[in-house]
């Protein structure tokens, strides 16, 4: 099944709405318009707030509103995009409204209502309607209307579930294919499991034979003492051997399968981590870090559990039950049926008990989460609790919830403590039935065809003790399988994600980058609809320092992300030394790009390791030299472990300024030709800022630098300043040139900052 079919299926499965614009509407649209469909969305509420099926369809020139009636879809309304002066979008609790306004003294062109499920696509439609002249005419962004609709309605589910799941059977099969490289271990482990089961059946059989063929004939006098002893000891030896063999096979199974499970988990972890490294930044921006980490750690661990024990335990349970039933029926079919017939009933009772327990656990977890909610509320906020003298109130709140959760757990204990004795009573009942059927036959003379020998009966009794464990395992197989499949889905979702930044087949290797950067008609949008950069053009010569200023959300940081090729442009080209960035080998390019970010990230490790992160073979001299340039050497020298001081998580705590200087030293050592400084001094105090600025001044020499800054004072060395706003360059020039225009954006920013510092000085 391909992605499109999957998407359609999931829309039906999770949302129960049409997976795309109905064909009938497309046909009707062709009759009235020659334009292709640009965007569409579902308005699922009518004016009476009843679920309805109205479709809002945009072409490049017009808006159409179709409604589903009894006889099919009808065109309710249509109007030109140019008629729209405003589109009002009002969100309320579960209903949003789009009002298309031509003028306030005229009736609205259309009013559509919808639930929040349709909010994203309707937001896109609103945006395009309000910006149609720019957006549609420029043709900067192209998309498939079906994909836009499908992705937007599924987005909340994809974000929450981290995937849109595929078929259970295909996921299970795919999971089992990870066993294939380890066929040998799998075969040995499985043989060990089968052998364990078969050997386990032997002691009961031998015991019965010992009674029937040795003890009873000896008592009857039909077997001499010597013969009885001889056969008896052979049988005891056989019993001993089966016990030994059984434990040996258990060892083989456990050893092979647990190691096999580890290998599968290791392979999954390796594949997962290696694939994660290839994924683009947009993947990481969409996923929560914790969710990704748990897939590499706990999900692979669950898979190990399933492979090592789940698969085999279930296999053994099935083999044991089939084997036991077969042996018992073969020994004595009447008694065998007495034993085998109630098995499905027992399996069902365990399953039903599991379902009941699931509901009870659900309640208990819910109440447990209430308890933890109080803890996570009050422990971090303990200062507020104490300041307002609310300790008693919080204590009462906690105690009440603690009591509630205790009651729920008590209900759980009530349930299982009742069930298991009852189940055992069921077993005893079967045992009693066997006795009831067996006793009359035991006392029947042996010459009678219906008689039962004492040995056969003893075998039965011993086999019966082996019945409960496999039944219990099979009763819980659904839960075990669900847990493993759930983890498998989460892992495969990452493995199936394709990187959005791909290298061309024969990329250009830029070994010695000069550092010329040019943006030509660049358009970029994170969501594919609302452009963050629009037709952006600029040229930067190698060695120039460019300051990027402007209001938040204007596109400054996006420019730096595109230069680093964390994202690709939607339209237009970025040229590095005259070569299209998409044609350049990513590795060789990124090695020559350095970054100093607002929140420097330091890994757990020594200061030396952190500075030399980009240049693993760096010498001690290189690292010390870089630290000196970054004004870090002095404070590192004050630390008792010097460059060997372990920092990062669980390590020595550095101040913000110190961390920043370590990250600058890292950038110095990597010697990038293009350097990106993203608010590098904004999170530190004035004195630290001075030290960092001094370090940065040394770092920028001889490199092409893009420095994003809010504080204009940090850009005093910039050759040119780009004022970025609404996705384009609003102004461009040197500090002096920009200040020469008193009405310009830069002048306004400059005045505001001067006023602020004057107020501060006062």
């Amino acid at each position, binding site marked *: 099944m391909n992605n499109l079919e999957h998407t359609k299926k999931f829309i039906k499965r999770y949302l129960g709405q049409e997976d795309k614009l109905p064909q009938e509407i497309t046909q009707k649209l062709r009759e009235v318009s020659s334009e292709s469909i640009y965007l569409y969305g579902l308005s699922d509420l009518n004016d009476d707030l009843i679920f309805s099926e109205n479709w809002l369809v945009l072409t490049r020139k017009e808006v159409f509103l179709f409604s589903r009636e009894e006889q099919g879809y009808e065109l309710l309304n249509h109007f030109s995009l140019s008629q729209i002066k405003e589109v009002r979008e009002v969100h309320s*609790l579960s209903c949003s409204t789009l*009002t298309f306004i031509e003028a306030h003294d005229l009736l609205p062109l259309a009013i559509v209502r919808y639930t929040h499920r349709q909010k994203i696509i309707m937001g896109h439609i609103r945006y395009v309607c309000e910006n149609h002249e720019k957006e549609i005419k420029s043709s900067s962004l192209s998309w498939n209307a079906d994909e836009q609709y499908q992705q937007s309605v599924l987005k909340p*589910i994809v974000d*929450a579930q981290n995937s849109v799941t595929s078929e259970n059977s295909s996921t299970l099969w795919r999971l089992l294919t990870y066993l294939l490289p380890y066929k040998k271990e799998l075969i040995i482990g499985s043989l060990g499991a089968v052998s364990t089961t078969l050997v386990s059946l032997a002691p009961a059989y031998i015991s019965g034979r010992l009674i029937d063929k040795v003890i009873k004939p000896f008592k009857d006098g039909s077997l001499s003492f010597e013969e009885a002893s001889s056969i008896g000891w052979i049988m005891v030896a056989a019993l001993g051997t089966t016990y030994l063999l059984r434990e040996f096979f258990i060892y083989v199974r456990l050893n092979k399968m647990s190691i096999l499970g580890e290998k599968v988990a290791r392979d999954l972890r390796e594949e997962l981590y290696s694939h994660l490294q290839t994924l683009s930044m947009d993947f990481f921006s969409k996923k929560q870090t914790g969710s990704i980490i748990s897939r590499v750690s706990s999900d692979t661990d669950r898979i190990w559990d399933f492979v090592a024990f789940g698969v085999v335990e279930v296999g053994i349970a099935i083999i044991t039950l089939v084997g036991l039933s077969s042996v018992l029926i073969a020994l004595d079919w009447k008694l065998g049926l007495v034993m085998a017939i109630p098995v499905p009933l027992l399996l069902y009772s365990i399953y039903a008990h599991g379902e009941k327990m699931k509901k009870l656990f659900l309640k208990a977890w819910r109440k447990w*989460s209430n308890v933890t909610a109080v803890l996570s509320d009050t422990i971090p906020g303990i200062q507020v609790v104490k300041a307002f003298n609310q300790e008693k109130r919080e204590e009462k709140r906690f105690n009440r919830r603690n009591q509630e959760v205790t009651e729920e757990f008590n209900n759980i204990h009530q349930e299982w403590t009742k069930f298991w004795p009852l189940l055992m009573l069921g077993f005893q009942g079967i045992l009693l039935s066997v006795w009831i059927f067996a006793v009359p036959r035991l006392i029947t003379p042996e010459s009678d065809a219906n008689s039962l020998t004492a040995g056969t009966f003893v075998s039965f009794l011993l086999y019966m003790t082996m019945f409960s464990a496999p039944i219990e395992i099979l009763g819980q197989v659904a839960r075990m399988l669900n847990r493993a499949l759930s983890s498998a889905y989460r892992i495969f979702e990452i493995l199936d994600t394709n990187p959005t930044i791909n290298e061309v087949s024969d990329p250009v290797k830029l070994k010695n980058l000069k550092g010329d950067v040019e943006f030509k008609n660049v358009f970029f949008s994170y969501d594919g609809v609302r452009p963050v950069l629009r037709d952006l053009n600029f040229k930067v010569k190698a060695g120039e320092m460019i300051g990027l200023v402007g209001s938040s959300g204007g596109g400054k940081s996006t420019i730096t992300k595109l230069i680093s090729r964390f994202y690709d442009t939607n339209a237009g080209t970025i040229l590095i030394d005259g070569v299209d960035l998409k044609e350049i080998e990513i590795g060789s390019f990124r090695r020559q790009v350095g970054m100093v970010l607002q929140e420097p990230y330091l890994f757990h490790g020594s200061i030396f390791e952190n500075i030399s992160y980009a240049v693993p073979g760096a010498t001690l001299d290189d690292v010390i030299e870089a630290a000196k340039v970054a004004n870090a050497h002095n404070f590192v020298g004050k630390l008792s472990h010097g460059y060997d001081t372990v920092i990062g998580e669980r390590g020595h705590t550095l101040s913000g300024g110190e961390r920043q200087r370590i990250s600058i030293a890292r950038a110095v050592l990597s010697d990038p030709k293009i350097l990106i400084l993203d608010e590098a001094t904004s999170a530190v105090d004035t004195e630290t800022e001075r030290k960092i600025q001094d370090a940065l001044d040394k770092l920028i020499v001889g490199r092409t630098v893009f420095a994003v800054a809010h504080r204009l004072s940090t850009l005093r060395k910039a050759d040119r300043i780009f004022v970025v706003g609404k996705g384009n360059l609003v102004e461009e020039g040197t500090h002096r040139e920009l200040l020469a225009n008193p009405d310009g954006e830069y002048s306004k920013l400059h005045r505001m900052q001067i006023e602020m510092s004057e107020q501060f000085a006062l």
Partner: protein
Amino acid sequence: MCPLDALNEEYEKKDNPIREEQKRTILIYRRESGVLFLDYGGRKVEVHIKQCFPWSHPGKYLSLRDLDDNEVCLIEDMQDLDPISIEILSKELEYSQFVLNVLSISSIEEDVELRRYLVMTPQGQRLFQTKLEDWPEILEDGTILIEDLAGDLFKIDNWKQLDKRSREELAPYVS
């Protein structure tokens, strides 16, 4: 007409200073375009309505806000208004208060990371999902609110009055 003291003084002072004599009438009306306007002292502001207490005091403390979502006027009690304004605001509240009332529950199932609900509402049948760790919220008066992944709200006024099957499905999540 809106009570004069309902006007947000900060809003007046900061963005829309008006003279005292202009504050004689404050009207809420709807233009032909369907958009709600507030006229105070001859100054017309396009507004939308937000309820400060949508669950505990639905008809009280209505905040009328401009396009930038700044409060222009806070109406303590809608009943203090003139009949025309009450009618206009009541209609507006129908939309802003709208949530999906659950009449019955066909099933609640667990999926990968999700809990799937199939319910019947006066609007029709609805299939929706929540995260596994998100439980229905029980308000002080016993009303149950379930917010799905898209943000739509599903309300159950009294779950004990639902049919037997619905109660059985819902019990683990609310009792």
